[in-house]
């Protein structure tokens, strides 16, 4: 961008203005964090409450009534297993697309991308019927298997963008040394694409962790991960604001930590490798 020499106070003003905007984007999450420790009276107060005596009543509530630890464990299991399964399938596919002459490769790449154009709900309705007919309803495995399928197009494209950046000479040298493609993948591509794999893993973990539709449709009761439990706050008699905010903190906190790890790759990840940030 234009390298204009701005005087220091103008620059300070600019930084301050941007900081205020950043604050606006962060504020709702801070409000949730505060809400999780406010008493019911403070939450429903007609005037904004900034200073209050923190209470743990909502945390006790989500522990006693919603068994939050159990669903947290489910969320962890599902997200970790989905991430693993997705990467195991995506890495060879990304390697194949990056390095080998495949018939109609551009068309395949475009189709993989356009799969993401289909709103998941369009496949979830028939999947619901199929899952029930094969008796897989309400199992952790079905959530893992389905989530992995929905994450695969993303994972393949992002990993391919990383593998494309590994100089071809390296795997060509390994091939000349007599390595078969599987060994090249295992010995050179796998270690060299470690940053890509980690980035991809964190994204898939985050998407799966946040996923609501499948989780709300394919499982019930104790098998549910956290996001559908958030919906329990919306009861017929009204909304349980305190527990909702406390649970919100539990759900959001683990992925918030990912932000700092992912910030460098965010633009790239969310455009499936199309934009190198």
């Amino acid at each position, binding site marked *: *961008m*234009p390298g*204009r020499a701005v005087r220091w106070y103008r620059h300070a003003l*600019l*930084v301050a*203005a*941007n900081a205020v*905007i950043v604050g606006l*984007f*962060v504020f*709702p999450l801070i409000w*949730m964090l505060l809400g999780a420790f406010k008493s019911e009276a403070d939450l429903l*107060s007609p005037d*904004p409450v900034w200073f209050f005596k923190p209470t743990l009543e909502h945390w006790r509530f989500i522990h006693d009534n919603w068994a939050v630890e159990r669903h947290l464990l489910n969320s962890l299991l599902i997200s970790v297993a989905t991430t693993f399964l997705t990467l195991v*399938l995506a890495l*060879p*596919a990304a*390697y194949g*697309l990056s390095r*080998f002459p*495949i*018939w109609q490769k551009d068309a395949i790449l475009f189709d993989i991308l356009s*799969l*993401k*154009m289909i*709103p*998941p*709900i369009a*496949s*979830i*309705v*028939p999947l*619901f019927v199929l899952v029930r007919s094969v008796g897989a309803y309400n199992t952790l495995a079905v959530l893992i*298997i389905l989530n*992995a*399928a*929905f994450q*695969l197009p993303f994972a393949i494209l992002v990993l391919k963008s990383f593998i494309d950046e590994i100089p071809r000479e390296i795997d060509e040298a390994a091939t000349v040394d007599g390595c078969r493609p599987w060994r090249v993948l295992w010995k050179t591509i796998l270690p060299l694409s470690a940053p890509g794999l980690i980035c991809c893993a964190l994204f898939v973990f*985050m998407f799966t962790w946040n996923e*609501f*539709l499948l989780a709300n449709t394919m499982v019930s009761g104790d098998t549910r991960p956290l996001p559908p439990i*958030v919906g329990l*706050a*919306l009861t017929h008699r009204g*909304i349980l604001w305190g527990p*909702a*905010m406390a649970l*919100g903190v539990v*759900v*959001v906190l683990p*992925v*918030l930590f990912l*932000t*700092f790890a*992912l910030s460098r790759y965010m*633009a*790239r990840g*969310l*455009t499936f490798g*199309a934009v190198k940030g």
Partner: protein
Amino acid sequence: MTAHTGDKAQIRPQIRRRNKAAWYGAYFLLPALVYIFTIIIYPLFYSLYASFTDLRLTFPVTRFVGFDTYAQTLGNDVFHDSIIVTGIFLVTAIVVETILGFLLALSFSRMTGTHPVMRALIMLPLIATPVTVGLIWKLMLNSDFGIINQLTDSLGLARILWLADPKMALVSIVLMDVWQWTPFMFLIMLAGLEGLPRDVFEAAEVDGASALQILRRITVPLMKRIIAVAVVFRFMFAIATFDTVFVLTKGGPARATDIITLFIQREGLVNLNVASASAASFLLLIMVLVLTLILFKRGLADAR
């Protein structure tokens, strides 16, 4: 392949090697493709079949009805309204997010030095679990004790029924979406701005171009492609919007925010009318396909 230089005996192994490589590529790709096909594409075919029947999970007998389900869906006012609401939501949200994201990126790119903490913080809305986002906004937009009305009150403005007034409810879901997704536009545009060649801007400044001229004549034209990419991706995510609106308004009041994904979910998973949900899905897919072709082919090609 340089066929005219070597003799045939030399070409053969080359072709064979190429074929072999192609086979290896296929082996690597196949497991993932089969997996995607079984779990995402096959159900769509099942759904296509269902859309030509009157399949309801609450009714044991299923008949083939041809285009009847489609005719019913197309004649259904709820479906119509849903398409209109979706259209308004998509266009307003994406336009506002694009403009805000671009301005914000411009503003950030003017700062000397990178500000990794600010940048990471602004991404939080993108990472926060959407269901939770819906609940936070439901609390903030509450007309009795929501912080947003408390702010407008203190400014002496009239109290707004954000979620109870149908018009304002639509504004509310756009507002929430803008909060959640402007950072996405911002990030992509910032990446784009940082990749622009500096010398063009320096030359323009030497020639005495004003900031506005530089923006209109240089920055925007150079950014066209990246803006197109951002809009296409945003459109792709926006059409699937579900969790946030499901929690914030559940389509209400009076179906004012009943976006198409909510309609399909309700028909298929609540009313268990799989035929109707499938027909609606395919009508949606056709619309998405047409829009994608226009956006992708025209938008991206023009920008290039």
